[in-house]
């Protein structure tokens, strides 16, 4: 008689699947509901931004960066112009720097909000997703007023920003802050205490500090393990040294800590915006920039704290108006590495909870 045996099953999750947040494919081998191996397959959204950049002037690259991490495009804009400015040693007008900080931190809030909503949607709760979109909509509407677009802002320029804030805009931002704080309390009441939610995220997908460093994680994935590493504090760029804010860290490095860090970080970002609004000076918003932007030959790298981690731009220039080679360090891509390790031995249902908490944006993973 044949002996009874069980088989492992290969399940292709994605590239079209409701909770892979885009075109991401995960090949998991499951034994019953247990994952034995997980193999992420990326590249479905690859547009070759880095290669395209080689034939574009620096100003023309900016709209392309919008399409990387499309939920936090302001930060991408800044990452690029910051490197170019650093390479050219440009002087940036004060007001432009303040405007940048305001829009970047607002964008960070918008991005984290989306994380909270989408994460809960992954876990099966639909309402938070629709709630957070209301606040996100307000932020996006503010961006629409300042730069004319809701998603792909193209707002930063080498040497400053495209437009000054329209009249009354800063007041609107100021009004938005208390509203947002109020809403954060509501989300806290709705989500953070829910026992079902907690049972799904507590102790789930734990990353230790050593692992996080070894896998070169950054952003909240790193901070949730308790390591106090935030580029805004560690290597202050722009005018971040002028603001008082805390670096939020977790303790256990589990999914709940990652969720919770997102939550607290929003509050910190709101604090930064508040401080920036108080002290924003008058003046021009675009510094003295040559008409044709040329970077002296050499290699330049700067990185900023993106919404998902260290967002770096590396430019090799041969002195022309186009980069000779550009490399983007996309935090989502780097953070994704740890996924296969986190998933092994987990239950299928946890897969979604863990994948969601690693918080990837496919535009950024594939560039």
């Amino acid at each position, binding site marked *: 008689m044949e002996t009874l045996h069980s088989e492992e099953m290969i399940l292709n999750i994605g590239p079209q699947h409701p909770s892979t947040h885009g075109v991401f494919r995960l090949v998991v081998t499951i034994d019953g509901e247990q994952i034995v191996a997980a193999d992420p397959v990326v590249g479905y959204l690859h547009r070759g931004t880095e290669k395209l950049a080689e034939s*574009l*002037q620096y*100003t*023309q*690259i900016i*709209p*392309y960066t919008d399409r990387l991490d499309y939920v936090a495009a302001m930060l991408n804009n800044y990452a690029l112009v910051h490197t170019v400015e650093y390479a050219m040693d440009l002087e940036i007008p004060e007001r432009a720097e303040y405007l940048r900080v305001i829009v970047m931190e607002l964008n960070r809030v918008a991005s984290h909000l989306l994380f909270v909503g989408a994460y809960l949607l992954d876990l099966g709760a639909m*309402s938070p997703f629709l*709630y957070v979109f*209301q606040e996100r*909509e307000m932020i996006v*509407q503010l961006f*629409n*007023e*300042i*730069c*004319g*677009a809701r998603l*792909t802002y*193209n707002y930063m320029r080498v040497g400053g920003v*495209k*437009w000054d804030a*329209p*009249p009354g805009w800063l007041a609107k931002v100021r009004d938005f802050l208390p509203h947002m704080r109020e809403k954060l309390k*509501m989300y806290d*009441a*709705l*989500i*953070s*205490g*829910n*026992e*079902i*939610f*907690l049972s799904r995220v507590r102790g789930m997908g734990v990353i230790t500090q050593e692992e996080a460093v070894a896998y070169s994680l950054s952003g909240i994935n790193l901070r949730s393990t308790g390591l106090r590493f935030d580029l805004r504090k560690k290597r202050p760029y722009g005018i971040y040294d002028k603001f008082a804010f805390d670096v939020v860290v977790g303790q256990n490095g589990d999914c709940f800590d990652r969720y919770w860090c997102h939550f607290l970080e929003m509050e910190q970002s709101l604090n930064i915006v508040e401080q920036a609004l108080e002290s924003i000076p008058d003046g021009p918003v675009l510094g003295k920039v040559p008409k044709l932007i040329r970077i002296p030959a050499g290699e330049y790298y700067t990185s900023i704290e993106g919404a998902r981690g260290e967002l770096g731009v590396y430019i090799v220039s041969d002195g022309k108006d186009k980069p000779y080679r550009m490399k983007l360090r996309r935090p989502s891509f780097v953070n994704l590495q740890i996924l296969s390790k986190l998933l092994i031995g987990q239950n299928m249902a946890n897969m979604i909870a863990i994948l969601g908490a690693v918080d990837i944006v496919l535009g950024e993973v594939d560039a």
Partner: protein
Amino acid sequence: MFGILKGLGVTFGQLTKKKVTLQYPEVKPVWPERFRGIHEFIPELCIVCNQCARICPTSCISLSGSRDANKKMRIDTYDINFEICILCDLCVEVCPTEAIRMTDQFELAAYSREEFYKDMHWLYDNHKEHGTYHALQEAKEQAAKEQAAKEQAAKEAGAKEQAGREPVAASEAATGGET
């Protein structure tokens, strides 16, 4: 258990709140002034300097021009391929004469690819239809002013802010009038 009850309270509280849905095809969204919609193009203003085509990161503008009797450059053809235009606004930024601008028109859906190739005439029509945006804005401002005036009759306060916006409206009216 307590957390679940708290969550239930939150959702129940939303039942009576104001709904945020926009009844889209009937009610259009109100776009701010800087909104970057589909372009409008005013041939009379264009001096065929080619700057817009050169800055366009996706090279979706193609144009040609010729000299007329007075040795002035006149635009002959001006096409934008909206299959690849990313509405980045760079062309508007560099245009020295504001011949190319952006409108609040955002509805681009079409049944065939050819429809995305918009030529000069389409863009000019777009200007006439949606370029009236500024005029509309002005009308809105006007209405608001009247409203404010009415309110002022009842109450003295409240009209100041409205007056502060007047110069902006006036300058827009000027640019709109040129065309």
